[in-house]
């Protein structure tokens, strides 16, 4: 069997069909992860009783277990819970009507939330305490101070870490193939098996992921440049 570069083009075209699924999973899990991560980080930073202990347990469990396990636990566990509740309230809803994609999004949001909470926490801790004191001193409430003063500065310092998280979730999204979601990796497998050309198909998939990763890095670099304008010093 020899390398067939021309097949890579065929593979590419076929992979593009799965691109939206990969992007969808990545974007949803990153967005939800950011929300979960922020709530978790704040609960821990402000030592909110009960919530902060729950948050710590969540973070250590998720970070202490493989991402694949989160997916499998949700995939097999969530239907039990949902069907159980539906049975209790006498609803006719069954977990069978939930699209597979939803399981992947939920599981990966949980994964992303734990990892991103650490990123958000580090970002908030990097903001000088004097900033929030000054915000309070001009009369802002804590939520106002967080929104207007702390988060923008925390975001500027955490961009490199955030972009790593996004890349991690992009690459991790390939695991969705294990529950039969057709993302890029699963599509590569399909096109490879149909034509018995595995190396070319996976190489095409790898190049596609590489391209996406470079794109994310570029965007993050550009954003970082823009958001950090304020600390560059020098003349205006």
């Amino acid at each position, binding site marked *: 069997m020899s390398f067939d570069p021309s097949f890579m083009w065929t593979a590419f075209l076929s992979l593009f069909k799965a691109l939206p699924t990969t992007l969808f999973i990545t974007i949803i899990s990153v967005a939800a992860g950011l929300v979960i991560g922020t709530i978790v980080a704040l609960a821990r930073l402000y030592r909110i009783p009960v919530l902060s202990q729950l948050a710590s347990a969540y973070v250590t469990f998720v970070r202490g277990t493989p991402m694949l396990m989160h997916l499998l636990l949700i995939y097999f566990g969530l239907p039990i819970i949902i069907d159980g509740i539906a049975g209790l309230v006498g609803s006719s809803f069954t977990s069978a009507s939930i699209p597979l994609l939803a399981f992947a999004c939920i599981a990966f949001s949980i994964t992303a939330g734990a990892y991103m909470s650490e990123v958000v926490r580090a970002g908030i801790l990097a903001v000088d305490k*004097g900033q929030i004191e000054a915000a309070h001193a001009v009369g802002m409430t804590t939520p106002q101070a967080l929104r207007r003063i702390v988060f923008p500065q925390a975001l500027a310092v955490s961009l490199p870490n955030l972009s790593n998280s996004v890349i991690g979730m992009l690459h991790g999204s390939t695991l969705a193939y294990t529950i039969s979601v057709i993302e890029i990796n699963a599509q590569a497998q399909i096109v490879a098996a149909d034509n018995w050309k595995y190396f070319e198909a996976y190489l095409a998939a790898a190049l596609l992921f590489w391209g996406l990763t470079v794109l994310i890095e570029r965007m993050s670099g550009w954003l970082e440049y823009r958001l950090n304008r304020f600390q560059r010093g020098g003349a205006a």
Partner: protein
Amino acid sequence: MIQLEGIRKSFGKQQVLGGINLTVQKGEVVVILGPSGSGKTTLLRCINYLERPDQGVIQIGNQKLEGKHPGRSEIHRLRQRTAMVFQQYNLFKHKTALENVMEGLTIVRGVPRDTAAEIGIEMLEKVGLGDRLHYYPSQLSGGQQQRVGIARALALNPEVILFDEPTSALDPELVGEVLEVIRRIAEEGITMIIVTHEMGFARDVASRVVFMDGGAIIEQGTPDDIFQRPREERTRQFLRRITPEANYSI
């Protein structure tokens, strides 16, 4: 009018304020002196509840707060009556000079943006920074940053401005420009409580000088009372230590 009654504060086992009573009339400029660790900063921070006193009553205007557990909204209202100028300036780093001054007006007071911008420009001009409106803090000298800090406080038109060693972090050659600005606004009749180690300035600007040591007010009076005729030995010791010129002239 500001009235503090029996303010106590401890950090762990260490008592930092041991029952402070202090009344400041409208338009007064009260300068607080005292050795390092005597509780000056802590007292100032209790006034706007950046630090919660363990005990005591703080009254500003017609609002009274008591002890450790006032509600969040009460603290929020109290803070709107005060403004603070910090030793480390604490300008909002991601905002320009003008945005720093406008922030409290638009976000807290609900002033429309264009009105807030007018006020902001006026205040920055007042502190001599009319040509630096759109500079970020990182693009300003320490003295300029602190003057923005003062403009930010002034813009809120508070019942009292609290200054915590506003010039201590500055290079010596920049101290003068900041003190000059404070001196000028003091003449406008704005109530101020100033912690400083600048004795000449204290003497000039103060309508009353308060000397603190060990978390207590040891004595207070006019600048002349304190600097020329201190009654307490501890005050004399302190003044001897920080005005070395007096020693040389012997």
